[in-house]
């Protein structure tokens, strides 16, 4: 884990690259840029960890970060005032950043196991940080299988990864589905939970990483249970409103657990211990 800036004051970082993923999702590359124009990551993150992005005068929000080596990647969907502003930004713009926050996925515990990734919509952003880690440390993990769904083909994010990079990785199956197809869509049409059930992924020695909208998570969990997954082998991430990121401002707690500090990654059996308030 990098040193980072976990106290409340952000550091200014530069948006070095912006990728249009879908009409309402963009991926921002954030880096510290020195005099010579060389970039370095503001801090390093574990898969699943968070970064607080700050737009002066507009506000701050927490996003799932993907470590890109010499930069951080934040994939952000337009949902409100702050994200609308972010989508208006141009490359070269400076913003504030602090982090890393949260626990991240237990990559060591997952070693030696098959990994089933399930993502829905923008939920692929945290999943992708785990996928990248597994791909980078390919020998440490067993078979990889990603099931990803979005509303329409136009809403599929990280298309390059989905169609080029990941299918080329050894023992990595990528299954995509959309809720509503279009004329050009040749792939599967249907909701993620049903697709997972249909695909009958391997259960033995497999951990599942599940991120997406609450409704998708709810139904997918039913399917996973039916397939025989134990709660100890399912990880998911939660989202709450956050302000401080260090477990002090009070608003992101679920029971005694602060999502910004003890989350956002929860194992399902841990989550079952907490009140149902998220």
């Amino acid at each position: 884990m990098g040193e980072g800036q976990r106290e409340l004051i952000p550091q200014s970082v530069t948006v070095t690259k912006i990728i249009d993923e879908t009409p309402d999702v963009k991926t921002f590359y954030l880096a510290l840029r020195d005099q010579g124009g060389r970039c370095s990551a503001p801090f390093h993150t574990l898969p699943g960890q968070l970064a607080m992005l700050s737009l002066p005068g507009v506000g701050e929000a927490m996003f799932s970060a993907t470590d890109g080596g010499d930069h951080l990647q934040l994939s952000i969907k337009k949902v409100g005032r702050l994200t609308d502003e972010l989508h208006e930004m141009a490359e070269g713009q400076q913003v504030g950043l602090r982090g890393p926050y949260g626990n991240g996925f237990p990559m060591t515990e997952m070693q030696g196991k098959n990994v089933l990734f399930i993502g829905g919509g923008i939920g692929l952003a945290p999943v992708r940080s785990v996928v990248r880690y597994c791909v980078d440390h390919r020998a440490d993990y067993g078979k990889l299988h990603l099931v990803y769904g979005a509303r329409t083909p136009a809403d599929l994010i990280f298309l390059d990864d989905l169609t080029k990079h990941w299918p080329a990785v050894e023992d990595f199956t990528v299954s995509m589905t959309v809720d509503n197809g279009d004329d050009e869509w040749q792939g599967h049409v249907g909701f993620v939970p049903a697709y997972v059930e249909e695909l009958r992924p391997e259960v033995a020695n497999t951990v599942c990483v599940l991120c997406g909208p609450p409704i998708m998570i709810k139904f997918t969990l039913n399917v996973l249970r039916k397939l025989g997954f134990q709660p100890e082998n399912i990880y998911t991430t939660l989202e709450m409103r956050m302000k401080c990121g260090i477990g002090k401002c009070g608003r992101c707690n679920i029971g005694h657990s602060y999502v910004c500090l003890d989350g956002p990654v929860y194992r399902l059996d841990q989550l079952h211990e907490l009140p149902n308030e998220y």
Partner: protein
Amino acid sequence: MKALAKKNLADALALLAGQATVWVPAKVAGVTRFAPWSPAVTLDLEATPPAVSPKEILLPETESLYRYSAYGMDVTFEAVEQEVPPTIIWGIHSCDVQAILCQDDVFLSREPQDAAYAKRRAATTLVALACTTPGPDCFCTSMGLEPAEHASTDVQLHILTDGYGVEARTARGEEIVARLAEKGLLVETIEPPAKAQACTRAVNPEGIDKKLVEMFEHPYWDELAATCLNCGACTFLCPTCHCFDLTDHRRNAHEGTKIRCWDACMFTEYTVMAGGHNPRPGKKERVRQRFMHKLRYFPERYGKWQCTGCGRCVARCPVHIEITDVIKEVGEVTLDG
């Protein structure tokens, strides 16, 4: 024991105020609260407890954290360095000392510490005053406290007939006592300090933290929330409520200050996420959060009640939702299965 005569109190405060900001319970615009001592201040050491807790000394209602500017592509952030003078909180009661311990748990016990709080806390010396005549809403003894003294204070003042018994508990406390003694403000006494009268209210919180684990979905919360106004009076008066908001104080389109100000779990907007989802959408969820936090989550996380029995929320709730009733009623609720 050393004693400070009442007639010497002003001299003692003046002496200490020469080197530190000395917060004392005082009448300010009709309300008893802690205020920096000066000869002009109207001391009010009788209020049990002062209407406003000393929370604001360590966690100001509003404070600046950093200034930002954004011109064109460039963005800068510059910390606002708060000057923190040596601080003495004089006349703080056991309930509020305990509350500071709760705040320490939140702000200091886990990394990263809260820098601003840590700085202020490190500069602060607590001079606790025994509380012998409890107010009508006091129930600190029920929450495990001793109103006549608190172990975690730097100096403990005891009530004597015509003054205060002075007992240093830490090196920092010794220093204050030594300074007072040096100026001849202290005398030796053998008078035993006054004993605290029993608290007016008594409840038994034992085991309710465990019981609350089973009560998340209980209809009790609906009933409790039905008359709640969702105002922030309880949380803002509470000495242990620590929630805050970080928000922009915009000077113009380009510059401003990031401020931290108190926030309350009672407010609608508190947990609303971008896109509109609110994990605590109604009064019930918010009221439940408040009591669960005080009586279950906080004990689970930090091993102590987040209620010190000061009774401020009891005294000032517009609709008389009383935490003492909640403790009692939760204790009495029957759980199915």
